[in-house]
C-alpha cells in the first residue's frame, strides 16, 4: 500500500509550529496532507489509505539520531545496519547517521555507498558520516566533495579526535567549501592515556585513571579558536557528545560571538553520573565518560536554555564477551536507540517540564537541520513520510534482553521509562509496530 491516514492523534511538529489535534495523510513516501480532525476522510478514501487510529497518541516527525555506530562494515558480530536500524525503528527513529569508525574506516565513496544500499536491509534511513582524514589517521584529508556527492552528510574522525592543529584547520576549511560540518569527538588524547572513567574522587577510590574535564574543554576551545580564524567562511563545527560544563560554556561563548558551532548531548550524560560505574560496571563505561553531578546538571541546563542543539545517542553496541572483561580492558560505549525517547520523556518532559514540542525539536527537527537532512524532522506537506506515534503517558520498564540491537550493553536495564513507541513509519513504510 502506498497511502496511510493517521487520525485522531495529537500532532507535534515543531517545524510547522503545530501542537494540536491533526490528521495526517501519507502518500508515496511523503506527507500529503495535514488537516484538523476528520477533514481528510474523503482524501484518504480516494487514496485507498490504510487507516491508523492514533487516539491518545502523539504523532511526531520520526526521530533523527546523528550519532550512531552501526558497526558495518567489519564488525557484524556487534551490530549490522539491519539490526541497528531495527533498534532505531523500535526507538522511534527514522533517520540515523552512521559514524565512520567501521572496519575498514569509512573514508571512501565505495563504503559510503555500500552503507546506504538497500541490500543492507535497513529499517531506517542511513546517512553515513565519512572520515575526515584517511583511515582516521589525522594526516591527510579525505575527498569531501565526492563523499558528499555519495551521500555523506558530515565528516569526523569520531573516537580518534583530530589533534593536529594544521589538519583540523584544513578540515574545517575544506568541509566549509564542500558544505559539510566537521564533527569533533573532543578529547585531547594526550591527557587521557590509560584512562577509563571521569577523573575525580571516585576514580581515585576505584584506583582507575581518570579523564580530566580539561581534556574535553581544552580541545573544544582549541577548535573554537580555529573556527574563529576561519570566520567569514562557512565553516561549521559540531561538537559530538558534549559532557562537561566547561566545554558547554566554551560553546556558549563562541555562539555569542557569532561562530557557527553546534553541539549534541547523549541521554546518559543528562541522566547518569559517574556514580553509575559503581563497582566497575562496564555497561557504565563510555567515552566521554559519565561525569560529575555538576556536569550532568549543566547538560540539563543546556538542553533547557537552548545552548545544546540536539540529543544524539552515541549508540555503541559491543558483544557480551567484550564487556565482560576487566573494567580497564572493556571497550567504551553503550547502546542507546531504544532507551533515548523513554529517558528524554521521563527526565526532560516529566521532571523538568520540557514541552513535547521542544523535545521533538531536540530529537528530530534540529538534528535534521544541523546536518541539512532536507525533508526530515518535519511533517510539513512534501516532507518525507517519517513519523513516530507514541503514547506519552505509558510507563514501562526497559529490558536489555528485549532489544532489537545485536548487543545489549546498556546501563538502563530495568529502568522505568515514560512514553512508549507504538508505530514508526520511515518513508511511508511501517518499520516498527508495538505488539
Amino acid at each position: 500500500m502506498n497511502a496511510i491516514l493517521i487520525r485522531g492523534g495529537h500532532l507535534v511538529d515543531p517545524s510547522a509550529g503545530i501542537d494540536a489535534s491533526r490528521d495526517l495523510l501519507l502518500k508515496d513516501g511523503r506527507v500529503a496532507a495535514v488537516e484538523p480532525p476528520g477533514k481528510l476522510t474523503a482524501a484518504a478514501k480516494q487514496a485507498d489509505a490504510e487507516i491508523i487510529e492514533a487516539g491518545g497518541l502523539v504523532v511526531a516527525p520520526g526521530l533523527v539520531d546523528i550519532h550512531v555506530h552501526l558497526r558495518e562494515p567489519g564488525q557484524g558480530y556487534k551490530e549490522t545496519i539491519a539490526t541497528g536500524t531495527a533498534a532505531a525503528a523500535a526507538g522511534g527513529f527514522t533517520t540515523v547517521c552512521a559514524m565512520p569508525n567501521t572496519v575498514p574506516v569509512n573514508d571512501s565513496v565505495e563504503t559510503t555507498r555500500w552503507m546506504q544500499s538497500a541490500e543492507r536491509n535497513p529499517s531506517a534511513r542511513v546517512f553515513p558520516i565519512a572520515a575526515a582524514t584517511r583511515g582516521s589517521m589525522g594526516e591527510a584529508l579525505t575527498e569531501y566533495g565526492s563523499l558528499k556527492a555519495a551521500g555523506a552528510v558530515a565528516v569526523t574522525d569520531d573516537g580518534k579526535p583530530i589533534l593536529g592543529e594544521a589538519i583540523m584547520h584544513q578540515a574545517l576549511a575544506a568541509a566549509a567549501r564542500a558544505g559539510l560540518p566537521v564533527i569533533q569527538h573532543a578529547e585531547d588524547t594526550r591527557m587521557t592515556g590509560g584512562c577509563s572513567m571521569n577523573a575525580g574522587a571516585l576514580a581515585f577510590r576505584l584506583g582507575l585513571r581518570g579523564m580530566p574535564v580539561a581534556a574535553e574543554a581544552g580541545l573544544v576551545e582549541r577548535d573554537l579558536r580555529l573556527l574563529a580564524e576561519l570566520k567569514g567562511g562557512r565553516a561549521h563545527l559540531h561538537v559530538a557528545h558534549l559532557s562537561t560544563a566547561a566545554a558547554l560554556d566554551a560553546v556558549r561563548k563562541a555562539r555569542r560571538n557569532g561562530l557557527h558551532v553546534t553541539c549534541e548531548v547523549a541521554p546518559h550524560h543528562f541522566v547518569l553520573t559517574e556514580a553509575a560505574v559503581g563497582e566497575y560496571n562496564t555497561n557504565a563505561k563510555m567515552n566521554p565518560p559519565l561525569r560529575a553531578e555538576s556536569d550532568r546538571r549543566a547538560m540539563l541546563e543546556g538542553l533547557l536554555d537552548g545552548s545544546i542543539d540536539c540529543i544524539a545517542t552515541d549508540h555503541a553496541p559491543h558483544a557480551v564477551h567484550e564487556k565482560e572483561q576487566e573494567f580497564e580492558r572493556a571497550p567504551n560505549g553503550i547502546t542507546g536507540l531504544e532507551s533515548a525517547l523513554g529517558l528524554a520523556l521521563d527526565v526532560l518532559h516529566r521532571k523538568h517540564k520540557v514541552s513535547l514540542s521542544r523535545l521533538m525539536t531536540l530529537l528530530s527537527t534540529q538534528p535534521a537541520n544541523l546536518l541539512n537532512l532536507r525533508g526530515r524532522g518535519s511533517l510539513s506537506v512534501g516532507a518525507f513520510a517519517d513519523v513516530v506515534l507514541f503514547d506519552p503517558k505509558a510507563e514501562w520498564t526497559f529490558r536489555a534482553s528485549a532489544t532489537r540491537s545485536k548487543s545489549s550493553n546498556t546501563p538502563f536495564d530495568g529502568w522505568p521509562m515514560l512514553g512508549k513507541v507504538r508505530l514508526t513509519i520511515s518513508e511511508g513504510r511501517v518499520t516498527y509496530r508495538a505488539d
Partner: protein
Amino acid sequence: MTAAHWPLPTMTAIKAISEPPRVALPTPPATAHPCSRSLLSVTSLAVEDVSAILGLATELEDQEPAARAQRLAHRRVALLFYESSTRTRTSFELAAKGLGADTALISSQSSSIEKGESLKDTGITLRALGAECIILRHLSSGAPYLLAQATGLPVLNAGDGMHEHPSQALLDVRTMLRALGRPETAPGETLLQGITVAITGDILHSRVARSNALLLPRLGARVLLCGPPALLPDVALELGPGIAIERDFDRALKQAQIVMMLRIQKERLTGVHIDLEEYTTRYQLHSERLRTSAPQAIVMHPGPMIRGLEITSDVADGPQSVIAEQVRNGVAIRMALIHRALVSEPGKTAPKAGPAKKLTVRKSPAAGKGSGA
C-alpha cells in the same frame, strides 16, 4: 592450568564436590556481591567484621597445628596470580595449607592466560575443577568483582591494580595493635583511637594506601597522607573522613605514632616524572630523621622495599621496624579470611553485607536516580 597440583580427590571428596558447580552461570544478582564471604574491598567490612577477623586470626594461630589442619581438610582453594608476588602469595598459600586445604597456584605465565583465556573463563575453569574459593592478584583495578560475579564463588582480593589490598590492611591493623600493646578485643571503632598513622610515598598508585586509608579511620585512627602532589593528589582527601594531607614529612612524623612507608611504583608511573634525588631528600625515612622527628614511632612497610630510596637499611632493620612482623601477621589474617570464605559462621545464615551498600548502584534504577533528576 598446567600449574594446578592438588592431590587426587578421594571418593568422598569427589562426592562432596559433584553437586555444584553448575554449568549455567547464575544470573547476576541486583547487588554486586554474589558472595558476601568474599573480600573485595575493606569498605564491605563492618567494624564488627574486622573484630571477628582479628579474633579468628588469633584463634587459628594459637590452635595446635594438627587440629588446625582439620579445619579445612581437603577443601580447595585456588591462587590466581596475574602479577608477581612474594609475600602475599606465599602467605595465602601457607595460610590455606595450615588449615588443611588443598591449593592450586595458577599464574599468568605458564597457564592458558598466556593464550588469551579471559578472566571469566579462567574463573569458570577453576570452579569446574572444584575450587571453592579463589584468591586473586590482578593488575587491573576491579578485576575481583568480575571474577566474583562470573563464578559466584567467594573471592579474596589479594591486590587489584591501584584499587585495594584488603588483607594487607587487616594484617597491618593486627601488627599495629600488637606493636602498640593494645587489645584486639576492644570495641572495633576504638581499636586505634588516638593513633595517628602517617602513610608516606606513592599514594596515587598504592592499593595498600587506599585499603588502609579507608579502614583505619573507621577503627578510630587518624590517617595522615604524605607525599608530593604528583604522587598524592588533593582528591585523595575525598576517600573518606579521618584523612588529612601533610606534605611536609617531618611535620607528619612529629604527629605520628605509626609511619608506613611506600615504594614508588615505577611500573605504574605513566607520564609522571619524579626527581628521585629531591624525593629522597624530602621523603626518605632515614635514621636521623626518625630520631629527630619520631623517636618512638613504629615503622611499617608493606614491601617490596627499595632500600636507599624511600627507606634506609638502618631504619628497615632497626628497633622501631615491625616490617617482618607484618609479614608474619599476614599468615594469621589470611587463615582467618580463607576460613571465613569457606565456613559459614554458626548461627549466621546470611552473612552481613556491611556498609558497602552505597556502592552498589549497578543496574539499580532507584539508586542511580537518587543522584540526579
